[in-house]
């Protein structure tokens, strides 16, 4: 297990997962990507993002999908899943190709 001091090092590769933001989500967070502490139950993802970016849940996340390791997950039905150290998460807003 990671020591307390290691857990504090959010930017190190230890004890963190990567989250990518796109379109309206990147606009709201002013970030394309960042690292957040792992492991993290999927059920705690939106509360964590709301804490970091107040208002994001209602204004952005409500219309977004979420992928975990390149597979879509349902934030409610898959709430028991846990985001592991090194995992890649993406917030997927409504798309606009073409």
């Amino acid at each position: 297990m990671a020591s307390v001091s290691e857990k504090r090092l959010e930017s190190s590769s230890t004890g963190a997962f990567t989250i990518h933001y796109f379109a309206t989500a990147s606009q709201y967070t002013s970030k394309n990507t960042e690292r957040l502490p792992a492991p993290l139950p999927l059920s705690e993802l939106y509360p964590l993002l709301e804490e970091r970016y107040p208002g994001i849940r209602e204004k952005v996340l409500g219309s977004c999908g979420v992928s975990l390791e390149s597979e879509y997950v349902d934030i409610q039905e898959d709430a028991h899943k846990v985001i592991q150290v090194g995992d890649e998460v993406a917030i997927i807003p409504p798309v606009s190709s073409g």
Partner: protein
Amino acid sequence: MTTEASSIPAHLDPSTYPRIHHDATHNIHLTLTYSPLDANTYLAQTSSPTAGANTLFLGTTRDTFEGRSVSQLSYTTYPPLVLKTLTAIAEDAVKKHQLKGVSIAHRLGVVPIGEASIAIAVSSGHRAASWRAGEEILEACKERAEIWKREEFVDGGMEWRANADRDAEGNLVKKDGS
């Protein structure tokens, strides 16, 4: 510490493109690129001596949105998801319409007004299948492909677009029937 905020993730770094996927079994070609799209390339990819019909769709960037002048638009994508989505769309079309080949290409980064942002080439034994499949593939891409368009306006401001807000004729979609 190095600044994580300033480092660009690989999927936003043009030097990691083009990303190309080719499925020889179904003759499916997928291209994500920051370079201009070359229609002849995609027609050549889907050409076949068994095909009697070859259709090409080019979606080009428009200079207005609801009367506002667009100065510049750009696209981003997330390859781990979009390549899976495009593969599924192409495979479905090949099976449903017995296509001889499908090529889907999308341009990323800034696309100058009037240039192609998406190219879809389809070949089939006879014309009906190509026409129908081409439209179905385009509509599926618009609905599902993990690609995002950002429009910057001449009068200032910028907006991320959402295809679900518009139908194939550009009309506003009513979200709720009530």
